[in-house]
């Protein structure tokens, strides 16, 4: 059982109430006006071609950011949210570089910077059994919180009941291996700039396929090199012994030194 957020773009009126609620609950400064996602704006509504699109972290089922972080500073919780442990982060910014949705942001102006992004109100709401601040204030019910499978069923229901209202796709069911933030839209998603995230396999598999070879590479390589050394060394020793026997000079079989 994991939670998710469903955002229905046909219902979003662009009031930014979610963006405001997010700033309030996370005590983020409001001066920057929330024109795009940043370290101080974790969600905002962007108007693209007459459509209001709410941006936030997708909380991928198999998050790229979690897989690349060398120190497990990012974590996919059981409940669904992908959260950040500030005290572990070394600031390598691999998560920012790797996230297919370009979500995590960095506090560039700070001397001790943190990675910042939507954490689905994990500590303050979801882990206490409440819904996130942003979904709780939406005046149209465009963005709602719930169990992921129930939300998907609900979205499918809407697609069935209003086939003319929606494009027949729930963004986030398969994208990037599945995400915990889902979208419905009346305009094809690619025209709205939604990423063509690969859906055949989640991103972390790409590198795991390679990383999981390491033990065998290391083992086989080590044994092979030792074998090679042994064979070559043996041959040289034999040659030297032969020479020694031939010339009978006792001093030519000295051990090699590095």
């Amino acid at each position, binding site marked *: 059982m994991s939670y998710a957020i469903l955002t229905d773009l046909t219902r979003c*009126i662009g009031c930014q109430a979610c963006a405001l609620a997010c700033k309030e609950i996370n005590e983020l400064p409001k001066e920057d006006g929330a024109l795009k996602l940043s370290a101080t704006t974790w969600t905002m509504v962007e108007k693209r071609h007459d459509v209001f699109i709410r941006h936030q972290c997708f909380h991928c089922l198999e998050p790229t950011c979690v897989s690349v972080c060398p120190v497990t500073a990012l974590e996919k919780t059981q409940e669904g949210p992908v959260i950040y442990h500030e005290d572990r982060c070394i600031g390598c910014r691999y998560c920012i570089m790797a996230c297919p949705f370009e979500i995590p942001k960095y506090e560039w102006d700070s001397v001790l910077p943190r990675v910042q992004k939507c954490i689905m109100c994990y500590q303050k709401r979801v882990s206490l059994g409440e819904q996130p601040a942003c979904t709780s204030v939406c005046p149209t019910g465009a963005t709602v919180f719930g169990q992921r499978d129930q939300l998907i069923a609900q979205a499918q229901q809407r697609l069935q009941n209003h086939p003319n209202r929606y494009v027949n796709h729930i963004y986030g069911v398969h994208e990037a291996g599945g995400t915990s933030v889902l979208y419905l839209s009346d305009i094809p998603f690619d025209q709205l700039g939604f990423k063509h995230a690969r859906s055949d396999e989640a991103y972390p598999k790409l590198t795991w396929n390679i990383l999981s070879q390491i033990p065998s590479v290391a083992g086989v390589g080590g044994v092979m090199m030792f074998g090679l050394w042994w064979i070559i060394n043996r041959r040289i020793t034999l040659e030297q012994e032969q020479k020694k026997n031939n010339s009978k000079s006792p001093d030519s079989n000295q051990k090699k030194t590095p």
Partner: protein
Amino acid sequence: MKLKLPQLTFWRVVAGIIYVIGLYATFLRFGKGLGASTNLSDEFPWGIWIGFDVMVGVGLAAGGFIIAATVHIFNLEQYKAIARPTILTAFLGYSLVIVALLFDLGRPYRIWHPLIMWNPHSVMFEVAWCVTLYTMVLALEFSPIFFERFNLKVPLKWVRAIYLPVVILGVILSTLHQSSLGTLYVIVPDKLHGLWYSPFLPVFFFITAIAAGLAMTIFESFLSYRAFGKRIELDILVGISRVIVVVLSVFLVLKLQDLSHRGNLPLMFEFTQESVLFWGELGLGTMLPVGLLLIPKIRENERGLFFCALLVLLGFILGRLNVSITGMLNTETYFPKWTEIAITTAIVTLGFTIFSIVVKNFPVFPLEDLETMPLSAHEKNPVFSVRLVLGMWGLLLIAMIALALAKKNELNHQVPQAALLNRTVNPLEQKLEYPPPFEFPPGKDSPGLVIFDHEKHNEYQERPDCKPCHVDMFGLVIITNVPAITHEMLDKGELCGKCHTGSGNENESFGVTKEADNCDSCHEEENGE
């Protein structure tokens, strides 16, 4: 060792200036943070400190494990003469990579975290471990030189006893992390340009690192000769150049095969900035030196050999930068700031300085193994010639012109400028769940509570419009922060006074002046009045 004041030479003055600028840049980096000292951004989080200092630095230091393996595992004794300078270069290289990382990490004092907080799924975790261990291995491999210098017999014996396993460990660790630097980019299939993205990046990184490491030994040998009058026999270097030809040919075949397999060969022939950079890497930096080295007259000539090694190195550097910077998404937003360049330059210079100090004080070049040549003024310059310098500048010029003419970056994910969209849905035609009515805090002589009702206010409007009250996106807060609204404020046209001007016009909202005599429109009537 007598303490002597170093003489002022031209290069020392240059180095001094570089260090001073580097120190100031260091102060900016740690005093003001990454934002102030770099041109990095959320769009482009990895710059030249990663793309050049780490990616290129580690690759150029690859000679260390190759030569160590050649001498100690394959027992090719004739290469022993270059083992020590190469290992020294590698050890310095890795140490400086770690220094560069301290600049790049947002929290450098936590650089040790990967050693105790494990995430085996992270390529960077693996690189961190391998680089740490390999730097220790290099220190061990270098230690006999140190022990010999100070005549420490006992530790020397110990190190020699474990030397072979250490060398083997070094080869394994190097193989792993040289390739893993490529694996770092396997997770960004949508962000790296098709000419470079491939699941085989680790293989390419490994092969090119071998070529670069070997080219570096040739390059270094000539520079050492120039600086210290110590040189490795030409035979050995020619032998190395043969290996480079084989390695680079393998790389060429695999790379082209991979491109055609992924259907990306046509990208090579589009005249874009990427394809120009690609040809710089593959044409000038790989095919050209391979072709030249196949000609015995060039291969066996000092200048020819040096020129080819230089080409291989430049090709390698370009190749790494192509993956880490110019081929990446949003590269057009990034050009290194002067601070980034200053620190990189200072780190490279530091490498040269330490190298020359160590060479002067430790038995790095075992003299008996080397041809020592007297440095006559004329001979001091065996590899730099006018033709060589002109040749390099010529190539660079051609590349620059091509780059300037080529089509701008392609990999630029922008929202498609779709033809005007026909929205059939109007989100405003739906029932809104307004926030609950809102109570304004009452002032001193308020005749009754003022309650703002979203629903009522929107009923009077043709379409819900939040803007008049929510001035900017977060204007709501401004209202809630007001302790109590006074009529003076409203008279000045602030807050409710914006709309409730009371001009008498039928479409306008009613006035809220004290004289308007309609208090109960807003104020709840108090009980008993």
